[in-house]
């Protein structure tokens, strides 16, 4: 079982991989100094899960601001999911956004453009982080 638990701070998102449940949760702002360092292990975790588990993988996202490198990383992860989906694996994304800011919904739709797997964009009231 792969452990992924990256606590967030002011400029990086909190990222938790729940291997048993098949859920990857990311939340917060993302403008890390080194996106490769931050997202490298995350991408690895997703690849490992998709390669070794027959169970579905669900992404639960409550992301706010993403700098350009973070956008690339998230798109890379979606590409992985798309490839898995095309191979018949069950994958999905749920993108939560603050209903007070409709722009984020439009943004999420851009991310979802090339994804043919289930991609839900849902309004959610902000939860205080644990």
């Amino acid at each position, binding site marked *: 079982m792969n452990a992924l638990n990256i606590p967030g701070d002011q400029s990086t998102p909190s990222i938790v991989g729940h291997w048993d449940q098949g859920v990857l949760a990311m939340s917060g702002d993302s403008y890390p100094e080194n996106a490769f360092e931050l997202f490298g292990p995350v991408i690895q975790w997703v690849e490992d899960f*998709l390669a070794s588990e027959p169970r579905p993988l669900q992404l639960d996202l409550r992301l706010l*601001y993403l700098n350009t490198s973070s956008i690339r990383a998230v798109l*890379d992860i979606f590409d*992985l999911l798309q490839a898995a989906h095309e191979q018949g694996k069950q994958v999905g994304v749920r993108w939560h956004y603050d209903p007070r*800011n409709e*722009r984020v919904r439009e*943004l999420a739709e851009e*991310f979802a453009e090339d994804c043919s797997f289930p991609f839900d964009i849902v309004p959610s009231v902000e939860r205080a982080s644990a």
Partner: protein
Amino acid sequence: MSATPQPLDPKIEQLLADPALADNPLREAMAALWHEHQRLVRRLERITHLSDSFQALAHEGELDLTRKLERQLRHLEKVARISDRYQSMLRELNVALAHASTHDLLTGLANRRLLSERLRAETERSLRGQTPLAVALVDIDHFKTINDTYGHDVGDRVLQTIAHTMEDKVREYDLCGRWGGEEFLLLLPATDGEHVRSVIERVQQAVRLLVFDDLQPPLRVTVSIGVANLQFGESVDALVKRADDALLSAKREGRDRIVYGD
């Protein structure tokens, strides 16, 4: 119509490997160009994607170079588009924040921060252009009693109503802001003594006419006002102090009046 063009990669590899073409004058240049082309595509892939192992799972190897290139470019364009959106969002947020930090939440008027900035700016402009500048401090009479008698909700309502009334009576280029708890500051640029008087008296009269007749007993309000006209070479603090001293006099002399500090 025309057949789908044959993929370029195998064709070029084939031509470069063909012994019959080994001495072809174009061969060396084409080999170099092809090598450079592949290098650039790989570089583009590294810029476009964060993950090194991305290629393995995405079956990139199956695509020929041209299609790879196009895919990378489309991907980069998408990254740029999304990035633009985030930046627009940040800018909007900044504008909203700037407004929130310079305006009073309750009345919507300029807050002390904005008033201080404008006071500084207008004083400098006045000195440069040798134009007049007047400051008026307006204080609600017996505000504490209003709060104690009717409660703070009514107190807030009174503040809001007086704020909107005054804002309505000053001119386009005047600034009306909330200076303190029950104190407002009016900034009147490029206005001489006589016109200052007419604006201030208009404000005073408008407040006097206010009636909150849904309250028991019905409430009427008045204000005390201290006015000062900028003296040449005077600092902002000195100007505001003179207006404040005039306001104090107005209070002491019985309230519901205007005192000119000059």
